[in-house]
């Protein structure tokens, strides 16, 4: 491997350590927020927001999505669409039943 590529990987390693620190801090924040005893909906939103930031960091840096090829993004876009459809289906069915009774 060339020296330039070697230096590049070394830069990556520094990023990995920073991401690790951020994930650890956000885990502590997640647990700390739980002690505020928020009601269900705000608690869910805060938990999902923090989890999304953490998941985003893992996907972007550990799974190298920041520098990935277009085909991978297309797979992910299709996945997100199907995932969202499935996710909406359940609460929609619930709302439909609740309204019908």
């Amino acid at each position, binding site marked *: 491997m060339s020296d330039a*590529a070697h230096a590049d990987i070394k830069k990556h390693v520094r990023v990995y350590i920073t991401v690790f620190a951020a994930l650890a801090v956000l885990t502590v924040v997640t647990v700390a927020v739980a002690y505020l005893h928020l009601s269900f909906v705000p608690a869910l939103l805060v938990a999902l927001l923090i989890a999304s930031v953490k998941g985003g960091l*893992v996907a972007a840096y550990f799974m190298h999505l920041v520098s990935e090829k277009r085909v991978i993004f297309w797979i992910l876009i299709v996945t997100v669409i199907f995932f969202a459809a499935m996710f909406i289906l359940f609460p929609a069915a*619930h709302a439909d039943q609740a309204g019908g009774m």
Partner: protein
Amino acid sequence: MDIPYTVTPRADTGVFNAKLGVWLFLASEVMLFGGLFSAYIFLRLGVDAWPGVLDGTAYARASDILNVPLATLNTMVLIASSVTMVMAWASLMMKRFDRYKLYMGLTILAGLVFLVIKYFEYSAKLGHGLTPSDSNFLAIYFTLTGLHGLHVIGGLIVNGYFWGPGSKMWKTNPAQFTNRIEIAGLYWHFVDLVWIFLFPTIYLI
């Protein structure tokens, strides 16, 4: 027969074949966990109290039944294992096979620690007679964490192979071996990612 594009990217996709394959597999995994996750939301929408009554006692919070400190520790263990996994790959990129062995070994160790902690967690529940059939809460808790645990075991088998007998490939085809570690890492990070969502939604709210 040689499998094509194990090292060089395919011209039309821009990635080596196995990477495309693993991302497609992960897409199916998103739907698997997503289905159970939406089932969990559905179960919660249908009840007034969660986790609700268990053995005659009414519980207002999941954290009154589940062990949050142990689950927090497990979150840290899994995050740490994700870092060592990516470091294992970075070590191969820097041609440091000795470092690879170290970091992959640490990744496997962290995965085993996660399972041991999970074992204590499960045996505490089962020891108190709390089984999946007792309530919707326990059913979805055991199903989601159990399926995730199976994924950890699967990752350990793959990583164990690449740490042990599979690492011989480093001598014959280092580029392909590095790619194998990259995509084994993609799976391992995904397992970490699932836990990042499971932990707050099941244990904390």
